[in-house]
């Protein structure tokens, strides 16, 4: 078997742009997911029953179907509902919606895990509910959910590979394309693995760094 790294170096700029597309769709999807997830979490925590019920249905649907299927629905079935998107926006939208549900779950459980006693103490001192949320619950929640957030962001990175199926020119599509042209499957798939490994590793390193900086003075409570 001949292992020819030259194949990789020949197509370096293609691979580079594929990597950037992956990076771009991943970060956009994450930002959208966090934004939507925040809205959903707020609606679940503070909304009335009329809002929470359809939300619950929506969440269950997203959680029960594969990402690929949701992607197809947005890209292929979308136009029938007036939503004709180019591949990249469709991909980002799907990724964002898919992630938002899981982000919302993380935000909600993190928010509720701040020990009840602290809220009672705040209440007794006359601190209003809003002040309590902003000054006591949110700061602690951000630290508590950090590991789960990093985990989810990593999962979404890996899900971007699925976007290749609707012809978004991201890393997977570029490298498998090169692979089928030149039949150099080993080299291309190896680089593909390394690419994702780099992204995931960078992400978790960032997460660990943040955890150490922010969590220094807080021991995670389990009251």
């Amino acid at each position, binding site marked *: 078997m001949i292992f020819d790294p030259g194949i990789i170096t020949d197509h370096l700029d293609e691979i580079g742009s594929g990597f950037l597309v992956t990076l771009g769709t991943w970060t956009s999807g994450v930002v959208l997911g966090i934004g939507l997830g925040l809205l959903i979490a707020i609606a679940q925590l503070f909304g009335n029953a009329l809002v929470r019920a359809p939300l619950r249905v929506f969440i269950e649907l997203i959680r029960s179907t594969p990402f690929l299927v949701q992607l197809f629905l947005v890209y292929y079935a979308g136009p029938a509902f007036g939503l004709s998107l180019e591949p990249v926006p469709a991909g980002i939208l799907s990724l964002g919606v898919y992630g938002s549900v899981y982000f919302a779950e993380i935000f909600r459980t993190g928010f509720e895990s701040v*020990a009840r*006693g*602290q809220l*009672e*103490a*705040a*209440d*007794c*001192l*006359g*601190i*209003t*509910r809003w*002040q309590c949320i902003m*000054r*006591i619950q949110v*700061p*602690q929640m951000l*630290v508590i959910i950090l590991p789960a957030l990093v985990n989810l962001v990593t999962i979404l990175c890996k899900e971007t590979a699925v976007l290749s199926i609707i012809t978004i020119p991201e890393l997977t599509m570029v490298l498998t394309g090169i692979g089928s042209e030149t039949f150099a499957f080993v080299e291309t798939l190896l680089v593909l693995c390394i690419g994702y490994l780099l992204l995931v590793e960078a992400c978790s390193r960032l997460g660990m760094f943040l955890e150490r900086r922010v969590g220094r*003075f*807080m*021991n995670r*409570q389990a*009251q």
Partner: protein
Amino acid sequence: MLRLEKVGKSFGSTRVLKGIDLQVRHSEVVCLIGPSGSGKSTLLRSMAFLEEYDEGDIVIEGQLLGWVGAEEPGKKRKRAPQSQINQVRRNVGMVFQQFNLWPHMTAIGNVCEALRRVRKLSAEEARQRGMAMLDKVGLAHKAASYPAQLSGGQQQRVAIARALAMEPHIMLFDEPTSALDPELVGEVLQVMKNLAKEGMTMVVVTHEMGFAAQVADSVVFLDQGEVVARGTPQQIFHNAEHPRLQQFLQNYLDRNAFWQDGKEAATS
């Protein structure tokens, strides 16, 4: 200053408080004692409206706490708006068994938070008042420490400072030393004794009979949601008449004074 009339509370079908009457005068120290499940914590928490009491009235400095209007049989009273509850509770401070400090803020941060958010003091004024309070409980040197860096006794003292910073007229203590290692109990009790000497009105739920005997002006014994006995420490501890009270004190002595007078620890 604080008056409870026929206060009752149920959790579902269980009646936890049954017709409690209590009066606390200015500068009086009242200790609530009793076995677990007697309702003493629930009663104390009701005084801060952390539990909504179902029957009767709790009146703080002339104002009804938590409800609007007189009680009518068969009808549930309307809950007072939060601002009104806060208004009545303004002069009540509470200290919890689990301290309930906010772990993401320093000691001085904890103490000043309410001063800045509720009393709307400037950062400088709040800091001065906060440092004075920490000094009062003997922890001025730990102002920049986070709760995780403090011992249990120190955390509880910070919690007391935090409550005191709001200049309450009444301080409520819910088993303040029950979660502490025995060696750390003393420092917290000392702070509380000093407070009592200064004339603070205090209602303390405690298992520390020594504290109650030394500091309290009146001791109230609760059992199964009712006031079974009340009186001066002398009356309660030395002239206990009610059989349930006698049993309670006997249990306590068996557990705690086993090295005196040849009494052996009770083995059941």
